[in-house]
């Protein structure tokens, strides 16, 4: 461990890097960058960040460490309060994204920067539209899109509307978009957070091709195995400071996570054998049709019992989201039945369902999980503000609410200066923590968790996974949907696999399941018999 701890020291880290590399080899160097947001929050404290030409450089750190902020500074979206940026040996002043793009720096943001109602081609060329005399040549845009997509072997339907595309393709549009602008440095801020394992593999192949072609890539991710697989060097941020920089091949995943969090993180979870009791949720012959007439959920039947965690594995976009949305009543018009304690939810309002102690973590925190402009406090009490315990006479009990919210912020380690800040000022992972805090703290009897650890750092993920197990031990039924196979296998007691809207496998003992096994079912290569599948219905 001694070899790791010395890496915490910046001086040593820099010395390691500069021993046998000449300074000119850095295509990019950010020196003493300090960024203070208008509310006084110091997101970067004299950060030094250097990247060599042609490498894939990982930027890692806990939620709120300041990774996105540093990259926004580099991309000209935020102005640093002090510090200098050198690009290709020259000192530069990046005042806005256009300057960055002109210089050859492009960024794919953590949350998509696409206009949903426009087509792929229109989004691709936005800002550099082809056409003469102020006219916009759509044909030319389509052609440009097709050319660039062929050149980099990233197929895309140029005339599809963004809102009709699955996330993997939106990601692809984002990457193509900056390639079209002829950049040399690509910043990818958590590009894999919304991708399936297959899409991630695909993306990595493409990134490696780009690297061979001489592109420099800055890669942000919370998934350590991805860093190991893809990156050459890494820089760690913690609380706005650089705590180390090193060669990826010199470190194990365990060591990297320790660098990030400052303590040992357990990547596996200890838990006792489940003691399932009565059925809480049962789903019978459930189907659902989307607006294009596609049968996205196809005749599902399963049940979840108190005291067990049922995992749903599957490539994203195989009906999981629609399933959880139907159970949470965010989607309507299903065919078939959803029963809560034996009673159909079809006629119940969302509040009635929540009153029966159902929690729902939506995979889409921006649309369903949070009110973007509201404060952290408002977001947390949004499901409980009307309850007796938070009201005194006819008014809300501000003091009690304040204490409650502050406790949760502390317990869930939400990094913020105050509960009264709009939730949009939080980093992506910290927003997710607010959602989780709200949903886990309502003493739930059924937890529907769709991608609960998306965008969350290793330390906090460990916390959330443990919490799921604790809730189970307290007698809650848990339905866990995750594209992270490791998470499904680690946390669940039993697993169903969804493919094309149907359940194709029920694996009673998650402990004896391997990722390969799941993979075969997920991709539809194998399918269990109807008898085997019937066992997931417990009544």
């Amino acid at each position, binding site marked *: 461990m001694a070899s790791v701890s010395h890496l915490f020291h910046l001086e040593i880290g820099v010395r390691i890097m500069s021993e046998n590399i000449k300074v000119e080899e850095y295509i990019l160097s950010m020196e003493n960058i300090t960024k203070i947001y208008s509310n006084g929050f110091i997101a970067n404290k004299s950060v030094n960040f250097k990247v060599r030409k042609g490498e894939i450089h990982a930027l890692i750190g806990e939620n709120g460490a300041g990774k996105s902020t540093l990259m926004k500074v580099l991309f000209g979206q935020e102005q640093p309060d002090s510090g200098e940026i050198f690009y290709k040996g020259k000192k530069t002043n990046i005042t806005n994204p256009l300057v960055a793009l002109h210089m050859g720096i492009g960024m794919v943001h953590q949350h998509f920067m696409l206009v*949903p109602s*426009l087509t792929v081609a229109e989004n691709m060329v936005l800002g550099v539209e082809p056409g003469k005399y102020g006219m916009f040549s759509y044909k030319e845009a389509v052609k440009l899109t097709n050319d660039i997509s062929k050149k980099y072997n990233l197929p895309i339907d140029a005339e599809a509307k963004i809102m009709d595309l699955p996330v993997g393709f939106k990601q692809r549009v984002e990457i193509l978009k900056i390639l079209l602008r002829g950049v040399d440095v690509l910043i990818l801020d958590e590009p894999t957070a919304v991708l399936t394992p297959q899409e991630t593999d695909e993306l990595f192949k493409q990134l490696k091709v780009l690297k061979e072609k001489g592109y420099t890539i800055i890669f942000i991710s919370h998934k350590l195995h991805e860093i190991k697989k893809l990156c050459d060097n890494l820089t760690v941020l913690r609380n706005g400071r650089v705590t180390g920089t090193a060669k990826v091949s010199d470190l194990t995943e365990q060591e990297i996570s320790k660098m990030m969090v400052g303590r040992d993180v357990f990547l596996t979870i200890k838990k006792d054998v489940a003691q399932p009791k009565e059925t809480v949720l049962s789903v019978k012959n459930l189907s659902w049709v989307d607006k294009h007439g596609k049968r996205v959920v196809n005749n599902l039947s399963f049940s979840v019992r108190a005291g067990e965690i049922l995992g749903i594995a599957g490539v994203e976009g195989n009906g999981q989201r629609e399933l959880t949305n139907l159970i949470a009543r965010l989607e309507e018009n299903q065919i*078939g039945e959803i029963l809560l304690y034996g009673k159909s939810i079809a006629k119940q309002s969302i509040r009635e369902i929540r009153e029966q102690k159902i929690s729902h973590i939506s995979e889409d925190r921006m649309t369903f999980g949070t009110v973007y402009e509201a404060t952290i406090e408002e977001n947390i009490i949004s499901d409980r503000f009307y309850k007796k315990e938070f009201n005194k006479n006819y008014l809300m009990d501000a003091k009690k609410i304040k204490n409650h919210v502050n406790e949760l912020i502390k317990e869930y380690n939400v990094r913020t200066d105050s509960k009264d800040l709009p939730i949009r000022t939080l980093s992506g992972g910290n927003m997710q923590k607010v959602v989780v805090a709200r949903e886990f703290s309502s003493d739930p009897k059924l937890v529907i968790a769709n991608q609960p650890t998306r965008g969350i750092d290793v330390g906090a993920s460990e916390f959330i996974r443990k919490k799921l197990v604790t809730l189970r031990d307290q007698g809650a039924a848990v339905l866990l949907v995750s594209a992270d196979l490791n998470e499904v296998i680690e946390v669940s007691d039993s697993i169903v696999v969804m493919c094309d809207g149907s359940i194709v496998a029920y694996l009673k003992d998650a402990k004896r399941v391997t990722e390969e096994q799941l993979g075969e079912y997920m991709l539809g290569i194998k399918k269990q018999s109807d008898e085997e599948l019937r066992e997931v219905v417990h009544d």
Partner: protein
Amino acid sequence: MDVIFKSIFSTVFFYTILRVATPLIFVSMAALIVRKGGIMCIAFEGMMLFAALGGVIGSALTQNLFVGLLLGTIFGVTIAMIFAYFVLVLQSNNVLTGLALNILGSGGTVFLLFALTGEKGTSSSLRSLQVPHWNIPIIKDIPILGEIISGHNLFTYLAFLTVILVYILVYKTRLGLRIRSVGENPQAAESVGIKVIRTKVISLLIGGLIASFGGMYMSMGYLPFFTRDMMSGRGFIGIAAQNLGGGIPLNTMLSAMLFGSAEAVSNVFQSLRLPSEFVQMLPYIVTIVGLISIGGVKKESKSKIKRIKEIKESTHE
């Protein structure tokens, strides 16, 4: 009853529809552009009133129609730019700003009028000019059709031309694409280097220009003079038409014409000596009904409804 039918199914009636729909088409197009830029602006009444007065003053003082039109446009666009400055630069509340500018339009025009002529009601003492009418060659001689579409004020033709131009602007030009992107996802537009505020200001500028034409039509075509509060809600009806038309230029124009028809009907009824309060309500009732009906209809696609039926049938078997 007979009289009503006769007057509604006459060529004069359809001619009237085009005549009264003209300002509505202008404002609705202005509202459309501004809305595409993601701005909620209700200041069109103010812009139109100032433009209407500006046109009258300019043409009366110089006896030059072109100068009149220019001054009217400057007046209207100025209001639009004041709105832009307050809302986009100083970040003030858009509804309050819009409201304030409408009140300014109502009071400010009367003030200007009084300062210039000593009158508070109309500008009839000013010898202002009017935009000419146009008898379209050949078409004017076609029976019925000629009577309906020929012989209108030039502004009326310009209104329909504007619809086409707005369509081209929004969907076929670089600027239009940028306006749409800025209106829908400003962060995304910004991330590719589009200047969000500037683009929004441009959309307001264009909107102000188009709304000004609507205003000047009122005082230099529809009527030959300016009267106080002569827009009587047309700025708002234009916004309603834009909503009813779902932000699509052609549908927006048709909605504006629907509201125009309601106004034409109310004109007919007025001449029939029905209670004028009731009759004057008509255009606004149509507007409200129109808005409720689009709000009420939840759009489930046909293919979805069909599919659900199929599945239900197959599971029953």
